[in-house]
């Protein structure tokens, strides 16, 4: 197993990241139809994505459905193999990084404790033949971290934390509502005392009041346990509330990255503006559903220049020809649009 330090990937020495993602790529082959399924192209689901995640930070990842958010986080945690790039992770907090991209299955096992994932689809990620107690206890059992009474107590404790009654332990997933199942997934991830949690739409199935409880819970745990999160979500109200910084993705790339308030107050990229402007407002007297928000990007067939150009009101010939790079617009604020400064 190779060990890296910050100089190997250009991290900040003052504030060393917990996770440094560099040029992460994940392509899925497009195959022809018929018997010999020849590869005829690539869906560039994630294309040269780079960012740092700091200790005790919540980084939001937002963007259009299908833009590659889940693929990004699933690849980082090696639920999928890398097509290219690196994800340097410092599990002990001592500046000795490992690259998720090059670890063997065997080497990954101990890291699974430190890095946990809460999945988007609570139904397909819970084993229907296991009881709730079994599902939540399973990671502890696999890693041999607790048994007997201590195991029971730990499971009860975490169930209470996510707002479920310990009496429910003997029931099976189908007996729970959608939002309840989502909390089971959260309990299962948190029971391991991880350092780093990826929450993929973890609160979107929850109604506002339970959502508020879970968000407060995630925030408390972050403070108590020094957790870091990558928080994938499409609810901008929630993102604004919980995230320290936000990365906006479009068609497999990060197009803007900034501290949360800065992003919401001064969005620079035209896509970010479209996104922020599309959030529904809870006012029946101001109905703002757009008749047509425009074509959706197809990661399997991207234009040569900026992927957003076909929908962008400011696009010029330059945009259609050259793909803009992510550039620093002001300290801490990155955007990939040549006109972002204006």
């Amino acid at each position, binding site marked *: 197993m190779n060990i890296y330090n910050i100089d190997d990937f250009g991290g900040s020495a003052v504030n060393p990241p917990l996770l440094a993602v560099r040029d992460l790529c994940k392509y899925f082959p497009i195959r022809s139809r018929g018997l010999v399924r020849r590869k005829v192209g690539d869906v560039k689901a994630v294309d040269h994505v780079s960012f740092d995640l700091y200790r005790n930070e919540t980084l939001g990842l937002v963007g*259009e*459905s*299908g833009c590659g958010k*889940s693929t990004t986080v699933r690849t980082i945690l090696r639920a999928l193999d890398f097509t290219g790039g690196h994800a340097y992770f410092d599990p002990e907090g001592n500046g000795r990084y490992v690259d998720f991209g090059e670890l063997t299955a065997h080497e990954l096992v101990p890291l699974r404790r430190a890095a946990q994932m809460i999945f988007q689809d609570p139904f*397909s990620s819970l084993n229907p033949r296991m009881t709730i107690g079994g599902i939540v206890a399973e990671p502890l059992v696999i890693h041999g971290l607790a048994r007997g009474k201590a195991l029971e107590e730990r499971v009860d404790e975490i169930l209470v934390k996510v707002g479920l009654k310990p009496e429910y332990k003997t029931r099976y997933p189908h007996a729970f509502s959608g939002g309840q199942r989502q909390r089971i997934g959260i309990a299962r991830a948190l029971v391991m005392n991880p350092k780093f949690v990826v929450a993929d*739409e973890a609160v979107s*199935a929850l109604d506002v009041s339970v959502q508020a409880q879970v968000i407060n819970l995630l925030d408390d745990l972050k403070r108590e346990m020094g957790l870091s999160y990558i928080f994938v979500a499409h609810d901008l109200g929630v993102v604004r509330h919980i995230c320290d910084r936000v990365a906006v993705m479009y068609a497999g790339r990060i197009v803007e990255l900034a501290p949360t308030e800065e992003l919401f107050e001064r969005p620079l990229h035209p896509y970010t503006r479209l996104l922020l402007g599309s959030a529904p407002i*809870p006012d029946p007297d101001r109905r703002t*559903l757009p008749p047509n928000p425009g074509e959706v990007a197809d990661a399997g067939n991207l234009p040569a220049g900026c992927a957003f150009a076909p929908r962008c009101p400011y696009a010029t010939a330059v945009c259609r020809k050259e793909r803009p790079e992510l550039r620093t617009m002001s300290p801490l604020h990155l955007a990939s649009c040549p006109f972002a400064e204006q």
Partner: protein
Amino acid sequence: MNPNVLEIEDLQVSFFSDEGEARAVNKVRFAVPRGKVLALVGESGCGKSVTSYSVLRLIRKPGKITGGRILFHSADGSSVDLASLRENDPRLFDIRGNRIAMIFQEPMTALSPVHTIGNQLEEVLFTHGKPAKAEAKARVIEMLGRVGIPAPERRYAQYPFELSGGMRQRIVIAMAMLSSPELLIADEPTTALDVTIQAQVLALMQSLQRETGSSVLLITHDLAVVAQVADFVAVMYLGRIVEQGSVREIIKSPRHPYTHGLLESLPGLHGRRERLPSIRGTVPGLFDLPEGCPFHPRCDFAKKGLCDRGEPPPEQVTSDGRRLCCFRAEEMAELLKKRDGAETTA
């Protein structure tokens, strides 16, 4: 023609286990007016999905509809009480997926992992008519485009696992729309979608609804979505409807303390607050339902001796025409005003 497409009267649904009978849906009563959108909102686990499953008679053991009527008034003038039909009644098969279509909360449960998107969508057309294969394919691809799926021709040949979460949800929406139902039951249809596509899908649902005059029972916990598309709202708590009214009444001046609390916990786009206000306490389990008003342990206005004993409050119509289940219904407008006033001066 009956002005309502669906009328639910005193519906009761229970789940039976060793622990006893859990009343997931209790004396629920509401109507979906023809051509309108009624939103059913409420906290996780309050019984929204169970209510909608009952309409299509999809409640399976250990669950059972134990009482009430579910009247479906079809545009052809016929009416049927769906709750009274036997599970294998042929009328149910005609109604399911044809006159009433459902968008399920979890898209993967509605999609087969081993068939292509195209085949699954065409299946809908073939069960409701006999279009030629080429015509069916064209209609499917057109619908995929309308729900905002990029490269519909390529997606047509793909399997569900090759799609993102939000795309799968749009496939399920397309599936329901293809059958042009009289009543569309949409259970959290846009929770997995980002705001731009959500707006597009909601707009599409609305335009299809207007084109075909169909009605929608929209189940969601997103009150902003409700404000944008619903005509009427019914608020559910612990298996009961606690308040109902027009969207303006419910969103702009909620009268039931629970509805009021729901609206307050919206993490609106108004900046970062330290802690989100959430309704205090937790939802009790179905086996330890409190006496009196089911909301009283969490209610700021609960009155000892009034709210905490006897049967739950029945639905009342206040002197200004509001419908809610609260022992203090008549004085609630005053109480809420006083408290909100106190908060803004504090």
